[in-house]
């Protein structure tokens, strides 16, 4: 099985540890991991801001980069895996809108979307594995990222993965499926509202008593983490790929 990583621009630039976590977990499970180095961004920031022409140029490039990667693979079981419900949504749901007037691009898209999965749904539904051999001694709470939950319908998969981690306790927070207030440029356009939403999320996280908050999107986690850090709240922020990469030896 060959897996092409689409790590997202956010992970590449700010949170490379998440990509590393994915590599470790997938490698551990025996997948042949590749990273198409020409990849950058999926185009979502422009698309969500209404700049479709700019987004289209980026999307078309994405399809070329990953289309070439897929062509290259001789493995029948070849996939594209992404550590973000949001970017996966962009590819699987909104590229159709964006490229609707271009049949050639839509053809490319169809080939790619069939092969593309968000990381946690990939582990459970394609690799059929909940226990990836991880160990984490801590109490975690899981924040459902909106796009993963409501656009892709992935709810149980990350929880099954978390619960299979040795030494872990999963404690659901109140309103675990409520938006954290990130929303991409929304967080900059209407910061007061965004932060007010975030306040409630932080209260729920703290209220759960967990020492670690886990999610499947670094967008949400940079928002949540930004508030935890500003307020000196000692709750760790972890992407699910980072969590699953843990073996218990990390803390020495």
């Amino acid at each position, binding site marked *: 099985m060959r897996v092409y990583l689409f790590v997202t621009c956010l992970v590449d630039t700010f949170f490379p540890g998440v990509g590393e976590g994915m590599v470790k977990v997938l490698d551990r499970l025996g997948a042949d991991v590749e990273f198409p180095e020409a990849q950058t961004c999926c185009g979502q920031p422009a698309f969500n801001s209404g700049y479709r022409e700019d987004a289209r140029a980026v999307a078309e490039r994405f399809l070329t980069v990953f289309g070439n990667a897929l062509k290259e693979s001789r493995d029948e079981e070849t996939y594209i895996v992404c550590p973000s419900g949001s970017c996966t949504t962009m590819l699987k749901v909104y590229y159709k809108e964006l490229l609707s007037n271009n049949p050639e691009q839509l053809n490319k898209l169809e080939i790619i979307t069939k092969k593309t999965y968000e990381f946690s749904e990939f582990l459970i539904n394609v690799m059929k594995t909940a226990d990836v051999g991880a160990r984490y001694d801590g109490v975690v709470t899981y924040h459902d990222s909106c796009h993963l939950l409501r656009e892709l319908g992935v709810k149980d998969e990350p929880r099954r993965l978390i619960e299979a981690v040795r030494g872990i306790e999963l404690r659901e927070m109140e309103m675990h499926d409520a938006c954290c207030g990130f929303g991409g440029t929304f967080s900059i356009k209407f910061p007061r509202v965004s932060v007010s939403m975030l306040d409630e999320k932080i209260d729920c996280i703290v209220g759960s008593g967990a020492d670690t908050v886990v999610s499947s999107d670094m967008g949400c986690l940079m928002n949540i983490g*930004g508030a935890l850090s500003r307020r000196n709240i000692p709750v760790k922020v972890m992407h699910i790929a980072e969590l699953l990469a843990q073996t218990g030896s990390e803390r020495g």
Partner: protein
Amino acid sequence: MGYERINFEADSGRAVDDEKLQRALVNVTNRFRSARQKASSEVPGWDELRTLGREIKKETIENLDRYLLMLEENVMKAGGQVHWARDGEEACAIIIEIARKNGVKSAVKSKSMATEEVELNAALEKAGIRAVETDLGEYIIQLAGEHPSHIIAPAVHKTKDDISRLFSEKLGIPYLSEPEELTKVARERMRSEFLSAGMGISGANFAVAETGTIVIVENEGNARLTTTVPRIHVALAGIEKIIPRYNDLSVFLTLLARSATGQKSSTYVSFITGPRRKTDKDGPEEFHLVLLDNGRSGILANEQTRESLYCIRCGACLNNCPVYRKVGGHSYGWVYSGPIGAIINPQLLGIDKAPELPFASSLCGACRDVCPVKIDFPRVLLELRHEVKESKAEKGKGMELLIERLSFRLWRTIVTHEKLYGTFSTLMYYLQKPFRGKGGNLGSLPYPFSRWTRDRDFPAIARTPFRERWKKLEKEIGQGGAGKGIR
């Protein structure tokens, strides 16, 4: 008391700081949310029912010309009169004309978003006709000289204490602290209004083309009184309120009550077909239906956003919206609020009047999950965002808009050239240095990122981006490389 402007950023900023409002919003959204959750889970096939509701609405809207004519014909057959209003002004003029012709001095009104939309009360007042809102929430709002802040709970932003003071001040009565006492006062005051009013004005939740029936859903009984007691009944309905067949109501009434308040059925549902019959002992002698366009035909013309017209005004999208929960109804600046307001206010008013609203959402999609007709809110919002940027709607923003445009163009150039992309992130890595604070995060960034860092830290760009780390990782993995010794 007209709607003067929409300024979401300023109004929402005030709203999040208003502690009283915040408490009220948590109260209303929590209550309605859990009630809807419970009521909908009791219906087997709820999801399929929503799909069916959507499909009926879709077919109706796509055949609207035909159903409008059918509705008109059947209302007239039942002895009613039908009027057509291109816009709010015309709707008001029609209603005022009916009042004048009949020497009506005062009118009672039951809750209607359409009459809010056309600002009928102000128009009636100007024409010398007294209009009394009779839904308790609307009555409170009218006394306070405000606008509703929720589609189905208009006075939700007011506390009991606010209302006690308001009643005492405006009605010249002692301060009453119990809701029962306040409600009793309202009942008595309004009973005499009902009995003396020459005209009753209502909205319509549905208008059935097949029979010419308008349907009004309520809990208080004021709509029943409005449509029963005065000599004339006028109903104002948007042209999208049509339902083709009588039977379709079993779908929509099941969806509406459970989605709105979580009741299995609202207390009263009135199905009104024309005025009283000759042999009837009561009911209005005249029935008028005013069909309102006011921008709806324009929405119809946009295939991408047409589904905005499927809305049955249940308010579930408000109650489940994390943004509405924080900003309340007034931040949306016009009659409709929450996700439905964010999509229809700009479309009804013109996108240049409300260019902010399509952006006033985190696109979390909670609204779509609860919508009884499955309006795809995120998709419509994204479509409208695109329209905002394609139009001159934001021309007032001048420089700010230009910078935004150029930034996206620059970003596009960068992310479509991987070398440039790599160089750019390295450059940014060094440029961020002066902003680094505790834990390596960025604590204070220049505009526009200052809007982020005011209350949150921003992550720092990694010294070694993933693409660089990959070069090392690539060598370690394979044949148990990176995973060596883990299992």
